[in-house]
């Protein structure tokens, strides 16, 4: 069997397993058999409510968030031809964080906070896009640099809000900044973005491979480079915003998951994109299950767990690669 198909099978199994584990594990453990029964023969009751109203939406939110971040990371690495690009180079996380934190300081509720986060992310993206796409000329390096500069500025403003905010609010802010799924809303919108986004991106995969040759070569081969770049930018931005709206700024997944897939030997985007989505989703679902069970009843921000679990795995992959080649 070819390597992409084998990995696809393994990642799909991991995705199912991670969601199943998310339904079983928690402060009120539910035996696997009961979960299977509840899926096959739904019966109203407390167990049913825990599975379908609490754990399943959260597992789906985690999966969608992880998948979206991995998708956005892979797309931006292709667009910017830069291995260090991650979903937050567009300034999304900084803009959303600043909006959300200001709303928190102003005493706004969850709905208004989400709206403020969305507005902040949209502002940041517009600035990055506007500055890198002036007078019809599109410059990838200016895009990357603008994003990095803007992120630095936003991060300073976020720190300013943190040190001046009332003590009682700071912990909630830190959870938001590190990424946390405790207050994730309905995962329906994000899941829809994930499925359509993955399909669209996979459809344009050959173009993404061509972009890695450089703009000039890609144009000489007849690729409509500029429309594709704008499309990829928009898709990556929408995917990142959808993920940030669910869980704040979860780090590590968007940068590292596409590289993990590459280190496992898959580089063509038609395989890399769907594989990254499956791996990112499974990984974040697992990390979130650990985050809410490790020191239960207290919950940890999942953004901390992604790095704690992911860093050793990535280091192992990197080391293995060096030894074998």
């Amino acid at each position, binding site marked *: 069997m070819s390597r992409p198909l084998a990995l696809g099978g393994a990642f799909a199994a991991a995705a199912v397993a991670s969601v199943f584990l998310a339904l079983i594990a928690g402060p009120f453990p539910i035996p696997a058999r009961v979960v299977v029964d509840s899926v096959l023969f739904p019966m109203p009751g407390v167990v049913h409510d825990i599975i379908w109203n609490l754990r399943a939406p959260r597992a789906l939110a985690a999966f969608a968030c992880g998948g979206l971040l991995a998708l956005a990371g892979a797309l931006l690495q292709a667009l910017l*031809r*830069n*291995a260090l690009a991650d979903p937050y180079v567009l300034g999304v996380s900084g803009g959303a964080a600043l909006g959300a934190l200001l709303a928190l300081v102003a005493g706004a509720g969850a709905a208004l906070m989400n709206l403020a986060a969305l507005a902040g992310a949209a502002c940041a993206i517009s600035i990055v896009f506007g500055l890198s796409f002036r007078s019809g000329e599109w410059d990838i390096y200016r895009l990357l640099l603008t994003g990095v500069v803007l992120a630095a500025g936003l991060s300073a403003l976020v720190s300013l809000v943190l040190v001046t905010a009332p003590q009682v609010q700071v912990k909630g802010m830190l959870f938001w900044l590190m990424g946390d799924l405790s207050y994730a809303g309905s995962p329906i919108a994000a899941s829809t973005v994930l499925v359509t986004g993955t399909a669209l991106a996979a*459809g344009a*995969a*050959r173009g993404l*491979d*061509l972009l*890695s*040759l*450089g*703009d*000039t*070569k890609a*144009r*000489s*081969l*007849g*690729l409509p480079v500029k429309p594709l770049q704008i499309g990829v930018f928009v898709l990556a931005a929408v995917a990142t915003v959808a993920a940030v709206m669910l869980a704040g700024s979860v780090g590590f997944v968007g940068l590292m998951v596409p590289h993990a897939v*590459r280190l496992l030997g898959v*580089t*063509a985007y*038609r395989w890399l994109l769907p594989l990254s989505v499956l791996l990112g989703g499974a990984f974040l679902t697992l990390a979130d299950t650990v985050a809410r069970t490790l020191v239960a009843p207290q919950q940890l921000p999942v953004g901390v767990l992604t790095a704690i679990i992911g860093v050793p795995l990535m280091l192992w992959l990197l080391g293995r690669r060096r030894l074998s*080649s």
Partner: protein
Amino acid sequence: MTDAGTTARDGAPLLKCEALTLAVPGRVLARGVELEVKPGEIWAVLGANGSGKTTLVHALAGLAPASRGTIFVAGKPADSSAARIGILLQQEEAAFWGSVLEYVLLGRFPRTAALFGWGIEDENASRAALAAAGLAGFEDRSYRSLSGGERQRTRIAQLLAQDPDCYLLDEPLQHLDLRHQVAVLELFGALARERAKAVVMVLHDALWPARVCTHALLLHEDGTVERGPAHAMLTRERLERLYGCALREIATDGSVFFAPV
């Protein structure tokens, strides 16, 4: 290729440019450049550093919108001509993580019949192109692990897989050792002779490889352009003026070489 065969019999130019202005931002390099490249011809583009050689081949490939003028591909204004014109760029911009075969497959983009991924025809063409570039057995190697010369030949293989009617080559011999320089020149010579392909190559270290060319275009530093059959263009007086340095003419076995004095 049947098209190229037809045009070869007609003797009509495959690539033609009229009143072309070569410009880089802030500077005009040459005005009124005319060129007609017919099937089977191999053109050398020679000139000093910064004289507009690269700008010319980019303009011919439709990649330099700043340059004014008209370019015709097989008699039609050039726009979406990727299947007919292929270019080997001087500068590598690639950030490519995949295998050598995947790299070469990307050249099939304007030709492939597959909607998603690549077809068996694309793979066969790419493997044949790798073999022609002397890279059989490199298919599964990582592109990033290759040496400079191997990368250059992989880029040439990608162009061969694209199978255009007209090849525009910017410094095709860079990074290549002497044996592979000869092999690459022979490869494009055979494509021109046997399959009526047209070749335009920018040569930098040009005094012996230019001899395989049938025609030459000289871009002088003062903006004047000379073009014509190779034997008329590649003379000591012209090349001394072109490069601004004294040359010695060495005739041996009926061939003429030039070397700095």
